[in-house]
């Protein structure tokens, strides 16, 4: 099967452009080949039409009917545990790490550098020991 993700009712998407960038929205209706009606209950994004080029489809789905009301959608979204599933996914983890890294202070960056050095030193030491043992 070539495709696993489709533009369909209940598809959870990531906005990748504009002021809503980085927030999750759910497809509520499809306008045409280029645009869909979306709403982001957790991100506080009101129902609006958005171009598909500005969305990235995720694996997640919310079980809703076409044109589900905002209240119904919010309940279904919470019940499906979308935010938790997103946070657990590697894609979600990658984004959260990226934003965490971008928000580090100068001292935090120094601490990360020290931690990285400590880690690689420990690894190097262990590798050396194992090499010696194997030889």
């Amino acid at each position, binding site marked *: 099967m070539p495709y696993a993700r489709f533009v369909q009712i209940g598809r959870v998407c990531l906005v990748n452009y504009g002021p809503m960038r980085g927030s999750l929205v759910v497809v509520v209706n499809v306008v045409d080949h280029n645009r869909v009606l979306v709403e982001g209950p957790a991100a506080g994004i009101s129902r609006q039409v958005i171009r598909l080029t500005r969305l990235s489809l995720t694996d997640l789905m919310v079980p809703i009917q076409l044109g589900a009301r905002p209240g119904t959608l919010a309940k279904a979204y919470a019940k499906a545990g979308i935010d938790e599933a997103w946070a657990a996914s590697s894609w979600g983890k990658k984004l959260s790490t990226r934003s965490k890294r971008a928000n580090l202070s100068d*001292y935090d960056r*120094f601490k990360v550098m020290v931690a990285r050095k400590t880690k690689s030193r420990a690894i190097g030491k262990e590798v050396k020991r194992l090499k010696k043992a194997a030889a």
Partner: protein
Amino acid sequence: MVSATRDQRVKRKAAQETTTTITKKIGGDKNGGERTITKTVGSKWYNADNVKTPVASRKHVHKPRKLRASLKPGAVLILLSGRHRAKRVVMLGSLPSGLLLVTGPYAINGVPMRRVDAAYVIATSTIVDVSGVDVSKYDDAYFKRTKKPSGVDVDMEESAKRPVPEHKIADQKAVDAALIAEIKKDSLLKPYLSSLFTLTDGQAPHELKF
């Protein structure tokens, strides 16, 4: 209630302004009780020529400099210019001249207590508690250098080796002691202050958070 018309109000105001006399009470029985005196005595003569008086300059009024919010006492700063550039130092306070008072501390990274311009530092969000450091005696005069007498031939070698005054060494030690006690509370703070700031690949200074 009918309010006064505009004409009436203008007249009333003019009457108030043109009152040029004051009645003063005068003591003594035979003095009539009070006397009317003109408010201001005008000049007795007029200058024949129109002498222009210079308008007071609005420049050179010393206003205390307003520092940006990130420059708080105790903030770790990155110096951007001068011989200590790229070093991380602790801000002790600001001086009336608008310059910042910083120190390395000297024992950690070799930056003595010195004044720096706020434009040449990056303020980081890291704050060291400097409430235990007494900086009340340090003002601009403390850092002012004595001018060499002009016209006197100064031996270059001798001037280059000008020693640091004893009292300044003692002051630096006192400030360092108080500050280092605070810095020791965080085990990574000392290596952080002794390290230099650099940009690495993919780091854009305008996008970094400090």
